């Protein structure tokens, strides 16, 4: 059950290195070509003095829609009308940072065309100077999402920073701070993934949904029930932990009892992930759910700005991670957990109840993921049905980078992934930053499959 290379054929290593370089060589030009060739539809081009809003309008049959009027309202309330061009593209300049609202004038649509979700018109978005924010209005027949990924709802699709604003020290500091914050929150989510893998050998593809569950529960108690945020967050984390307990008791414990192998269980987690994801969408819809709607208080430290909520979230995350470390290193149950990770058979032989430890790990892991989800939902300003699903591969990258099954590896790996995701948007388009993190995942598996903190072991 340890991770290991089946074979380590030294003469072949250079082949792998060579291919890694080839892979990087293929990937990097396409990524770095980004800022230079970033094609903005229409005349607006983002630079250091202005940003852009843009998009393409296409009919349900995929034909470009020309001559459709869009009304753009800037933060000061000034409204400008723009018309889509012959290729369906439209763009508007963003003279200052803030919330912009774009309304599609439905009376200018050709006959037979209408907006799929009229409640999403006007579309509000945060736009920044120096970057291009793309908006998607999808036309269709009344809210039927045709793409299984739920991409049919009108939404902000991408914010791409263009390189023209340059890499300044302020931006580096800001991105590094964001990266550390993101990494800490990612660590909360990934530690459970790593502990579960360590104790049971299961790669849990449904772990992202535990994160989403935390965020959505916080939304339910804060917005729908009307409890204060702190109380909602505590209830959400407790319920998320309970869901982990129940999942293990009702599903995974039963499967282990039936001697169903970990690969089979892994495919079961995929099924569970799908069922939960679309279950969330069934109950809460495809839109963003804002946990708090009040305007955040901005704190500025030198070149870096963040909100007060984020600061408190970071403190909570650090305390939680410290508590987990204490638990693993200094308590009896923590030591037993590490023993089970090393070898379940030996642990069982020395009198540790392996199933009890696994139950605790599931509860703890799901609770931490829930906390990660609440804080991530606050940090990203909103949660939605696939927040965790979108983070899942980043969590896997973090856990693999740190060494599968090593809890502290997950922490180190998460911080690196967080930094890479946020810092990479300095040089590559913002909408490709997750691809950079996934590329790291593949490169780590090439050169150091045991991760930063994992031990190299061989089987066979």
């Amino acid at each position, binding site marked *: 059950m340890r991770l290991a*290379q*089946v074979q380590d054929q030294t003469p072949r290593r250079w082949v*792998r290195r060579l*291919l890694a370089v080839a*892979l990087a060589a*293929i*990937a990097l030009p*396409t*990524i770095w070509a*980004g800022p230079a*060739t*970033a*094609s903005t539809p229409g005349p607006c081009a983002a630079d250091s003095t202005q940003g852009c809003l843009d998009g393409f309008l296409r009919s349900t049959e*995929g*034909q470009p829609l020309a001559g459709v009027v869009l009304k753009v309202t800037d933060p000061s309330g000034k409204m400008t009308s723009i018309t889509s061009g012959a290729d369906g593209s439209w763009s508007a300049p963003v003279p200052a940072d803030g919330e912009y609202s774009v309304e599609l004038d439905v009376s200018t649509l050709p006959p037979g065309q209408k907006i799929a979700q009229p409640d999403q018109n006007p579309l509000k978005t945060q736009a920044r100077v120096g970057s291009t924010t*793309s908006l998607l209005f999808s036309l269709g027949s009344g*809210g*039927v*999402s*045709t*793409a*299984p*990924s739920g*991409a049919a709802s009108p939404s902000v*699709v*991408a914010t791409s920073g263009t390189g023209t604003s340059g890499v300044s020290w302020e931006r580096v500091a800001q991105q590094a701070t964001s990266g550390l914050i993101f990494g800490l929150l990612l660590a909360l989510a990934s530690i459970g993934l790593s502990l579960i893998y360590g104790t049971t050998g299961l*790669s849990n593809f449904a772990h992202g949904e535990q994160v989403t569950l935390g965020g959505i529960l916080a939304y339910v108690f804060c917005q729908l029930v009307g409890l204060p945020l702190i109380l909602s967050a505590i209830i959400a984390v407790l319920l998320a932990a309970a869901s982990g307990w129940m999942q293990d008791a009702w599903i995974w414990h039963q499967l282990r009892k*039936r001697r169903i*192998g*970990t*690969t*089979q269980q*892994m*495919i*079961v987690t*995929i*099924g569970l992930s*799908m*069922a*939960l*994801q*679309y*279950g969330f969408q*069934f109950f809460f819809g495809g839109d963003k759910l804002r946990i708090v709607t009040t305007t955040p208080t901005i704190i500025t430290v030198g070149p870096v700005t963040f909100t007060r909520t984020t600061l408190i979230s970071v403190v909570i995350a650090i305390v939680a991670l410290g508590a987990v470390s204490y638990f693993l290193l200094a308590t009896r149950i923590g030591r037993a957990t590490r023993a089970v990770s090393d070898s379940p058979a030996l642990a069982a032989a020395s009198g540790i109840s392996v199933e009890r430890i696994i139950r605790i790990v599931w509860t703890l892991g799901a609770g931490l993921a829930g906390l990660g989800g609440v804080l991530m939902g606050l940090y990203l300003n909103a949660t939605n049905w696939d927040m965790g*699903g979108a983070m899942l*591969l980043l969590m*896997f*990258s973090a856990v693999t980078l740190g060494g599968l099954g090593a809890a502290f590896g997950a922490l180190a790996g998460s911080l690196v992934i967080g930094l890479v995701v946020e810092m990479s948007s300095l040089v*590559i*388009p913002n*909408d*490709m930053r*997750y*691809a950079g993190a*996934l*590329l790291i*995942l*593949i490169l780590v*598996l090439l050169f150091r499959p045991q991760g930063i903190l994992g031990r190299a072991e061989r089987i*066979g």
Partner: protein
Amino acid sequence: MDWTRILTNVLGEMLAPTTAAYALAAVGLNIHFGLTGLLNMGQAGFMLLGAYGFAIATIAGWPIWGAVLVAIAASALFALLLGIPTLKLRGDYLAIVTIAAAEIVRLIGRSTALTSLTGASSGLRGDSYKTTFQNLSPFPTGTTTIGPFSYSNNFSNSWWIRLVGWAIVLIACLFVYLLIRSPWGRVLKGIREDEEAVRSLGKNVFAYKMQSLVLGGVIGAVAGIVYVMPRAVQPDSMGRPMTFFVWTILLLGGAATVFGPVLGSIVFWAGLMLIKSVMRDGVSDSFISSGQIEQLGWVIVGVTLMLLVIFRPQGVLGDKKELAINVR
């Protein structure tokens, strides 16, 4: 409830080009998983690469055979790049790497940086790459009605793509049938059962696994071309869910069988259409909206996948003795 209409819908879905495309993708995955035991969780990535390869080459003015070759070459190269680092590692590493690589393809495809090539998240319009395929059709322009089904002869969701799609599926099935009985196929099955035993017989396990990965990936790429023929190339509709549907289809029909993927695809799409049509007719719109019915359908797919793997991992046609999902 209008049963005639519902049954017509279900029958139509059985023969739809999408069903053929998914069947073909599952045939490819069957070579990976059913025959060799490789956990490829990125089949949608191969399909998307195939679709992009074909569409971009056609838009650049290549003839249809050239465009198909581009799609095949792109997916073969992708398989090589994925296989070299991971095929020597344990099974679930391949799973994580393939799922990540498929996401990279999608993320790069939908990035605004490559809008001129891939059309970013709005994708490539169908009309821009369909012409060469439609021009090959021997049918006259027009619409033909057979029984309750009325489709255009050549355009988009046509009889022509149905004919070609299912013909490719049959050829692929015949190919897999011959493969399973060949000495090469026996080595693959040996690798699935016990890699060490095959290695001790002096076979180059890595090379066999690589050939299997490339072959299944190429079939996936062709499936991608069939999939985008009646629609547009939309990166976001070819993400992780698509891979999971292909897995459900394969496990439903039965891995390591010849007709399992085809049966799986037909049952999957027909079943989904039946459930959705019945709910649309039977459940009041104020209770569950049509969008929610769509999502309920996918929830049912997820639960089906879970139950299948736990209670009947061999699927409808499979042999439980032949398929132990536990690959290493």
